[in-house]
């Protein structure tokens, strides 16, 4: 057995990682990484803001002060440093509400994506792994779900049950699983017949081991990308629902609600909607940059070479 001096670290030597694509791909990868870094920085900052809101916010976000209504931001000639981003129509500090609003957006985004991720990945993995009738039933569910317009269904349900933070989160969680299911199903189909899955089956591994230890880690990269996109999606939908009055209810400082409350002032005090609008734009853009970057760097891998 000692002819096996095959002990030098190999890898690159035996299978040089030569992939096609050329310069455009390389440039794309570079830009993607830059986008990834930018997205990661912004998301990290916003998460920090959400976590540290009680210390960062200069005022109580719910404290009304009718004497101090509609104070413009500091860069405006009538603005002051007491309220750097001004106050709203009830005299509440806009910066504090914005910071606390990060909590709501991130909470809804993350929890809704988590719920839909669990539902969608489970369904997708089962459909992909078992195929046949299981796949037919799950695909039917998926088609049914895709036939429902998310906003309309969410609006209808919210008006039926009554909008609240929990309602919106649950509704979105129960509605946004389609992309997870589609991606998990197709990724599982590719992995299902891999010889390492066959080997695990031949070892008598129980089903949960095969699905959780052999299949899931190998489709996780794709699911993480979907997750980031769904977080952004859920945040936008929450803002939409809140804007329409069927989402988070006042006095909670949701960004969508802030825009809704400011909409009657938008012609004379445009900052009232510009500020939460920009925050929303930044957060969603950053999450999408993160997701795209993750997709780009995880795409060529798979064989870890």
């Amino acid at each position: 057995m000692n002819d096996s001096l095959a002990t030098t670290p190999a890898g690159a030597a035996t299978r040089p990682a030569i992939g096609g694509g050329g310069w455009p791909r390389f440039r794309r990868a570079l830009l993607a990484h830059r986008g990834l870094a930018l997205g990661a920085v912004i998301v990290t900052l916003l998460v920090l803001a959400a976590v540290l809101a009680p210390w960062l916010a200069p005022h109580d976000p719910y404290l009304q002060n009718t004497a101090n209504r509609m104070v413009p931001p500091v860069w405006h000639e009538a603005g002051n440093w007491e309220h750097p981003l001004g106050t709203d129509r009830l005299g509440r500090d806009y910066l504090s509400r914005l910071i606390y609003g990060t909590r709501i957006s991130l909470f809804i985004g993350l929890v809704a994506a988590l719920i839909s991720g669990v539902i969608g990945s489970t369904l997708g993995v089962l459909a992909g792994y078992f195929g046949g009738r299981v796949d037919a039933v799950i695909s039917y569910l998926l088609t049914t779900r895709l036939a429902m317009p998310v906003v309309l269904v969410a609006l209808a349900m919210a008006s039926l049950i009554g909008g609240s933070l929990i309602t919106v989160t649950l509704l979105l969680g129960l509605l946004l699983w389609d992309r997870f299911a589609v991606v998990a199903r197709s990724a599982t189909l590719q992995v299902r017949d891999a010889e390492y899955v066959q080997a695990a089956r031949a070892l008598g591994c129980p089903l949960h081991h095969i699905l959780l230890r052999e299949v899931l880690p190998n489709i996780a990269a794709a699911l993480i990308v979907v997750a980031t996109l769904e977080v952004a999606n859920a945040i936008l939908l929450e803002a939409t629902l809140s804007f329409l009055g069927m989402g988070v209810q006042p006095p909670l400082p949701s960004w969508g609600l802030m825009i809704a409350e400011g909409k009657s002032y938008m012609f004379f005090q445009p900052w009232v909607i510009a500020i939460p609008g920009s925050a929303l734009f930044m957060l969603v853009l950053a999450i999408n940059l993160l997701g795209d970057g993750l997709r780009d760097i995880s795409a060529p891998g798979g064989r870890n070479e």
Partner: protein
Amino acid sequence: MTLAIEATQTPPAEAAQPFALELRGLSRTFTLGGGLLRRGRTLHAVSEVSLRVPRGQVMGLVGESGCGKSTLAKMLLGLTSPTAGEVLIDGRPIVGTAQKALARHVQPIFQDPYSSLNPRQRVAQIVGLPLRIHGIGSPREQAARVAEMLDLVGLPGRAARQYPGQLSGGQRQRVAIARALIMRPALVICDEPTSALDVSVQAQILNLLLDLKEAFGLTYLFISHDLAVIEHLADRLAVMYLGRIIEEGTREQIFSAPRHPYTRALLASALTPEPGLGVPDIGLGSVQPDPSAPPPGCAFHPRCPLAEPGCSQQRPLLNDTGGDGRVACHLA
């Protein structure tokens, strides 16, 4: 010698079984293109395969892609259930055996070491998995068994901490072999274990497989399309064509006096490194077999250079050749 004769004469149920593997009329069909409402076509992947592999021997299984050899392997491993017939391992039918119990007796080594190892697990986890699943030994004993096994297959100790992506093709195949053998199965199904490897590495792996067979008294079912490898390794050899065994016998019989025209063509098409011989004319037409629509009668007759009118009428049975072999051909 006398022992062996006695063993075959006593009823197989009680006596020590001389066959590590026995297949009785094994068949498997698949339905193609069927949906919820329409019925698909039936594909006979494996049809009435009967085969006995004596313990400690290497049974070579050759045939072209689509001949059913991989489906056959999956049935032996319990990964696909047969539609008819039975598989006996050490004389015991595997029907009704839990996959976990079966796993202790038969293990696979797959073709592609790039896909047979989970890229997200370290080598130690991969090789130790059988022990963990079957709850053999304490974690410390398991680690010791893994280290011992890695050493046996010629891998350095530090390989245990590496991921498959950090290893070369040959090293990965060694990992796959270590995983297959750590529970000391009696029967190993080798499904083209060297065809994805470079020539120089192939020799290392073949040597290793032969050494391990000696060391552990293993029985191999060795599937390959490389006749030089089969001739080097196999004691017996079965040739499959469109789901059926068409010839079976000892290595000497088949390589020196093949009876079936397909076996002859197969042997003729093996290109040994002998310059000057040129590429042989193997006499098969350009028709390629379609497993989902096998020809009537002898499935080989459209390509057979010797075919007679009767060959398309009646399917030849797999008959004893008188010696220790069987062949399915009207003209043999």
